[in-house]
């Protein structure tokens, strides 16, 4: 009886651990798919799209996650084949410096103006 109880407890713990990993993978999967652009749709992410292209990417991302690839590695794989455009969040490079730095500059400028006003 004791052995059976221990066995059931072990099975229960294994299942809980597996369920946790599945939820983690699912969350990562959704996060990645929401950040990939459907290249044959208009303004849709792969997550939202049901196109042939998106359904292939969905399967591919799932496979890569199961293989243990990181989010960064998956983005890099797609970037190499489709360019920066495929990812919604642009990478920091010479073409996107302004895009990344301008909001920060505006924020600092705004802060400076407010500080001057209230001084």
């Amino acid at each position, binding site marked *: 009886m004791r052995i059976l109880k221990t066995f059931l407890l072990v099975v229960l713990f294994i299942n809980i651990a597996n369920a946790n990993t599945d939820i983690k993978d699912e969350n990562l999967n959704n996060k990645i798919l929401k950040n990939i652009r459907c290249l*044959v749709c208009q303004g849709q992410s792969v997550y939202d799209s049901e196109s042939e292209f998106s359904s*292939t990417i969905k399967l591919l991302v799932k*496979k890569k996650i199961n293989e243990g690839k990181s989010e960064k590695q998956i983005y890099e794989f797609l970037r190499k084949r*489709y360019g920066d455009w495929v990812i919604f969040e642009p990478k920091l490079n010479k073409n996107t410096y302004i895009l990344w730095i301008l909001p920060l500059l505006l924020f600092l400028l705004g802060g400076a103006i407010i500080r001057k006003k209230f001084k």
Partner: protein
Amino acid sequence: MKNKIYLSVVIIFLIFCFVIFYNGLNSSNIYTPKINTKQKLPIFEAKDFYSNKSISSEELFKEDIFYIVNIWASWCVPCRKEHKFLMELSKSENVKIIGLNYKDNLNNAKKFINELGNPYSKNLTDKNGFLSIEFGAYGVPETFIINKNKTIVKKFIGPINKKTLNQIMQIIK
């Protein structure tokens, strides 16, 4: 004096925004994929269309000639239209055409080939579409030209027509 500095900063900023948005108005809002970027041939392993045996990309592209990779499917209507041009292309001795059968039913695909002819020196199956993604494809039909250095030098999105056939002929000559 201070007000003047503020005013000039604001004006410069507005001009800057105007120039950016004005340039944006002129550029097309339809996304056109990069089709001329030179990309190294991906390394992959695929199943042969007829024998279902595994074949590596090294074995496939081992000869020192031009290769054309054509992504096709029997359910794809434009593929039917481009097939005659592929048949014409297959007559050239400078090039070998590798077919990539995309997400297709094998029997339908075989019927398609039997009906319209086989321009492919080798045909591969791409059941889940992963192989097409390796090539950076968007869908079917799509055609890639691979040079002797095993680099993808040109990519044609959509069906091949008379004009693109001439372009391909120029490249592989």
